[in-house]
């Protein structure tokens, strides 16, 4: 059996796709196929996304008026806490890595599965178990500490189900660590012949960098929550100031994980954006090597900045200055990436399919979020706007404007590969535009409200802030609609959508060299790689006239 080259088509398998290999529920719930596990995760994170969305919808309804007329203060606290916990740990942290990453990592490197398939399935069950604990906390009456669980409120004074929620996150953390170990081992050990490190797609590098952060940061979260549980449940004094404990130490331990966690949430998004922008600008990425160094740099330097969450908590000025300086430094690799994406677009043949629209949205929204992060890194500014809506807007621009946009970009881009179907491009573009406008209407007014002094986590506010809150809540309705739309047209594509060929976007990358959807073993023959990635516009050739045949044309095979 000869090796097929990347240029020629790989022989398409005649076996059933991974979707057809086993139809029972049990075959899905006990599958060690990374592609099926990715689908399992996709279903669970979608469920959690809407759960977190419902919680914050109630919050935004309450914030329509300055008075408390929808929910009580306690309920309000429980709603934003639940929103934060669910969105951070059960949606954003898993999202791209466990769905897109799980499905695509082996395909992109030319492997048949991840290094430890059973561990992969186990990590999904860990995630679900953690989710069950957290849902129990919700049903039993909620948690009101904020997603940050600060002591001594969480350990000594809160009367809500802190332990159940903390246990849920603790267990989900091990799901993260398992996934990280799996991806690191897979990337090191299962690359196809010829797939050297600097021929890897940037999405693979993004998964790798994210996994490094997951493995090194999440254990500290586990300990932090464990200590919280020890103090609250067994009354062991740990952070209790009356006995000499230090609540700021909780914050150090918590943010040592939680700052790198935001890079867990954004690095995968950056990987997706690199894949989508190169394909729809028909250009190789500008500065591939620096894109790699930047991602690894973000992953590493991201561990040195956590104290910028603690400028007003009582942290020493000395440490605060160090953290402030390092926080400015960590912006540099992100900026390099934004410049390089922009340079990739320059003189490209840009087309505006839905994935590209989401990716371009990412570019703008991430930049706004990142720049406002620099404001927050500056101690004097931070003292003024900390715990206001300015911070809320900042992180939503990155998490939602950035990561969620990129997740949608990837979901649409690889939808034909995962499902073998084409979605409705018209509806998808409409949803993308709706999301961009809805997002900005929701969150831009929050920058202003925060700068003018509106505190976060308050269910009542002075009337002068109402205009911004009304804009924000109205925008949220539009945003919600934009999130619901894909549920319809993507589902619709599964039932009656046009079938996709193996490479509807005419993209580079090994995942496009196998069928849509792929067979159980991914490739009939393990490919041998001889070219660099993103070879869209070889220097020696004129641009090809071949355009994407996804819509309005016949498939290439």
């Amino acid at each position, binding site marked *: 059996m000869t090796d097929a080259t990347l240029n020629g088509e790989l022989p398409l398998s005649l076996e059933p796709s991974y979707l057809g290999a086993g139809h029972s529920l049990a075959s899905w719930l006990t599958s060690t196929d990374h592609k099926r596990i990715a689908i399992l995760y996709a279903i669970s994170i979608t469920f959690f996304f809407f759960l977190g969305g419902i919680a914050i919808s109630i919050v935004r309804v309450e914030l329509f008026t300055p008075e408390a007329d929808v929910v009580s203060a306690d309920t309000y606290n429980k709603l934003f806490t639940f929103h934060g916990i669910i969105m951070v740990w059960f949606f954003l942290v898993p999202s791209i890595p466990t769905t897109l990453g799980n499905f695509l990592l082996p395909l992109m490197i030319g492997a048949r599965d991840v290094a430890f398939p059973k561990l992969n399935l186990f990590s999904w069950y860990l995630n679900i178990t953690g989710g069950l604990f957290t849902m129990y906390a919700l049903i039993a009456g909620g948690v009101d500490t904020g997603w940050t669980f600060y002591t001594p409120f969480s350990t000594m004074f809160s009367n809500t189900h802190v332990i159940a929620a903390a246990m849920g996150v603790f267990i989900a953390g091990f799901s993260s660590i398992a996934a990280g170990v799996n991806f690191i081992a897979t990337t090191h050990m299962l690359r196809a012949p010829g797939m050297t490190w600097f021929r890897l797609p940037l999405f693979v590098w993004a998964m790798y960098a994210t996994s490094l952060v997951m493995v090194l940061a999440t254990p*500290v979260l586990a300990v932090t929550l464990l200590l919280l549980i020890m103090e609250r449940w067994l009354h062991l004094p740990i952070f209790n100031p009356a006995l000499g404990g*230090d609540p700021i*130490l909780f914050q150090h331990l918590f943010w040592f994980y939680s700052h790198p966690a935001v890079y867990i949430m954004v690095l995968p998004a950056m990987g997706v954006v690199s894949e989508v922008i190169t394909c729809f600008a028909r250009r190789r990425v500008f500065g591939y090597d620096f894109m790699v160094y930047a991602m690894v740099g973000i992953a590493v330097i991201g*561990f*040195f900045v*956590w104290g910028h969450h603690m400028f007003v908590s009582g*942290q020493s000025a000395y*440490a605060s200055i*160090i*953290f402030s300086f390092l926080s400015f430094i960590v912006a540099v690799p992100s900026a390099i990436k934004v410049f390089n994406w922009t340079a990739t677009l320059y003189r490209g043949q840009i087309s505006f399919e839905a994935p590209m629209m989401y990716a371009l949205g990412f570019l703008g929204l991430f930049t706004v979020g990142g720049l406002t992060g620099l404001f927050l890194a500056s101690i004097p500014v931070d003292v003024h706007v900390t715990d206001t809506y300015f911070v809320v807007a900042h992180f939503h621009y990155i998490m939602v404007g950035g990561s969620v946009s990129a997740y949608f970009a990837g979901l649409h881009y690889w939808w034909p590969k995962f499902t073998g179907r084409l979605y409705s491009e018209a509806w998808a573009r409409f949803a993308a535009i709706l999301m961009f406008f809805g997002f900005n209407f929701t969150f831009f007014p929050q920058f202003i409200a925060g700068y003018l002094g509106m505190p976060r986590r308050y269910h009542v506010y002075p009337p002068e802030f109402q205009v911004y809150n009304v804009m924000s809540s109205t925008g949220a309705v539009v945003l919600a609609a934009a999130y619901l739309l894909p549920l319809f047209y993507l589902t619709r594509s599964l039932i009656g959508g046009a079938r996709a060929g193996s490479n509807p976007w005419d993209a580079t990358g090994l995942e496009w060299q196998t069928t849509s959807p792929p067979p159980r073993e991914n490739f009939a023959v393990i490919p041998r790689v001889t070219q660099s990635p993103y070879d869209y516009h070889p220097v020696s050739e004129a641009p090809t006239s071949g355009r994407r045949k996804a819509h309005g044309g016949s498939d290439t095979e």
Partner: protein
Amino acid sequence: MNTSAYAIWRRNILVWLALVVLLLSTLGAAYLPLGGGNLVVGVAIAATKAALVVALFMGLRQADTLIKLAAAAGIVWLTFMFALTLSDVLARLSNS
């Protein structure tokens, strides 16, 4: 490498003997009036014992560079965590 049962036992028992000697030393040293030095000696001997287990029982000495890097990463990241946290703790202590 000699793989007879005798050879396996011999090379591992030598490591074990070293560990026992170190354990007895650290136990003895704890009773010496060294002030702050007690902690230093205790931690230093513990680090040595740990290094023996890691290098010899766990085979890190003969392992691939990649594996040595993975082990090193854990320790290096710990130093980041300690250094930056202590920068705050020590600064606040010296201020109070």
